[in-house]
């Protein structure tokens, strides 16, 4: 199994705060990898480093054996890494359909002169982009709210829209940042089904989650972070019994 993402000795400091310390990680193609850890352990920073929001202070990130350290977020997205944000970020003045349509940007050419004169070439490209957006919408289950403004959607739908937009970029590696936050059991199960569906399509999934049922349910492998360092790795079962992990979450008193 080839490695789709490799993190080599990556560190990130913000002023005096070390958010990620000398982290090594490898993700195999096609797996669903869970990333857990207490709040503040560096999970979102880690995602930001991979997607190019800021460059690491040290170390390199390799995607499909190519160094992507220091590239812009849109360049990294073009290479095939899609991401869903932890805090719901959507284009609030656009509809669900328009949101997804914007996210198909990478896969349809937008040319100034063709757009200006509304040529048949332009019309053809727009049709293609719209069909693609419809496909993604159906895959995620959002057809029912197609023309609703993103800002008025119920929370669960907003999270689904976030996933849909990441999917619309046609990623081979999908980063999901706490997708089930604020969801009830039904919504959580839907999200889990969606993640499995995505994985079945051949997309590698890196999942940050706080909900242990989700992690146990769909991840084959789990990595645990604390204070920006990897403290455990293994199957969900192994990790849940790991002393260091228990200590990190519950404190030293509970460790064996």
């Amino acid at each position, binding site marked *: 199994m080839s490695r789709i993402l490799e993190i080599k000795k990556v560190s990130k400091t913000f002023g005096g705060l070390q958010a990620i310390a000398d982290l090594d990680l490898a993700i195999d193609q096609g797996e669903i990898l869970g990333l857990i850890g207490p709040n503040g352990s560096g999970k979102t920073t880690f995602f930001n480093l991979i997607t190019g929001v800021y460059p690491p202070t040290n170390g390199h990130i390799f995607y499909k054996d190519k160094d992507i350290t220091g590239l812009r977020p*849109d360049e990294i997205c073009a290479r095939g890494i899609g991401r869903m*944000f932890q805090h719901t970020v959507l*284009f609030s003045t656009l509809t669900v359909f328009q949101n997804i349509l*914007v996210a198909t940007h990478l896969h349809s050419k937008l040319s100034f002169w063709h757009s200006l004169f509304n040529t048949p070439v332009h019309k053809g490209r727009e049709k293609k982009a719209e069909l693609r957006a419809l496909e993604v919408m159906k895959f995620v289950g959002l057809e029912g709210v197609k023309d609703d*403004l993103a800002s008025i959607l119920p929370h669960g739908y907003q999270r689904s829209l976030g996933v849909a*937009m990441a999917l619309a970029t046609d990623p081979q590696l999908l980063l999901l940042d706490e997708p089930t936050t604020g969801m009830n059991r039904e919504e959580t199960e839907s999200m889990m089904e969606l993640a499995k569906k995505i994985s079945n399509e051949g997309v590698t999934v890196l999942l940050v989650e706080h909900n242990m049922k989700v992690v146990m349910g769909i991840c084959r492998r789990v990595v645990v972070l604390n204070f920006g360092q990897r403290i455990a790795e293994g199957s969900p079962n192994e990790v849940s019994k790991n002393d260091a992990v228990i200590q990190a979450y519950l404190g030293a008193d509970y460790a064996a």
Partner: protein
Amino acid sequence: MNRNIVFACLFVAAVVLPIVVGDLYWMDIFIFMLIFTILSSSLRLIFSTGQISFAHPGIAAISGYCSGMMAIQFGLSFWITLPIACLAASVVSIIIGYPTLRLKGVYFFLITFMFTSLIGVLIGNFWIPILGGWRGLLNIPRPKPIMIPYLFTLNFNTELTYYYLTLFFTVITVLVCYRIEKSRYGLVFNAIENADGLAEMVGINLMKYKLLAFVVGGVFAGVAGALFAHYQRIMTPYDFDMHLGILLIIYNVVGGMNTIYGPIFGTIFLRLLAHPLRRFGVYEIMILGVILILFLRFIPGGVISIPERLGIVRPKKSTGT
């Protein structure tokens, strides 16, 4: 209300206007109204990417002076100096846009503010023999007449013909801005303005699109500058200064920044208002400032949004254009 119908009505009204109100005083006002419509509409294109620019007056000044100066020094006609001036405007836009568009909010505004101030000072104090200094560039010629063989000669020495010339360019400006916004560019610009971190994350190259809007806006500012120069035939550094920058922002906010009509109606409404306000002398700009603040606070959608708010027109379900 169908957008195309409104456009058509506006266009017809503008075409027959000189027949209805033909006297020179009003024709002069209408010509300036059109020039300012070009400026505020093209500025709105830049606003739609979330960048509040104060560079428009400076770019228009560069273009106007370029066109006027070349017409005087080299005897070139407007029809040649206009494209060259627009090219100059686009080059200047790229030069100032590229380093500054990465900045947002106040920082970008401040740098463009400094740019426009700087241009005024440069024009007033340097190359006085060719640019005329603070007194201004004088005797800029009107566009050379167009000769249509065997039919007639179209000359631009009268207000009437210049009005239609300016109307022609105004229509082109509005159409281009409309087309860009209606296409997926409009969605991309909206996305960049709304949530640029997310836009980047779905693969949109922010600089490319912000620069595109900035340069297209700048080219039309250039058109307005040249039209101004060759109409008034005199150009001074005071014509495209801070005052204009503030007016353009006010026209956009009061008109309404959510639609393409906003700046059109804003410009018309406020320039007509300028006449009764003139009696207040220096307080005129203060009154406009108060109007700006009132609109920002109470009617943020601008004059255009008033029919919706009063319930006369049903609101559209989604925005985007």
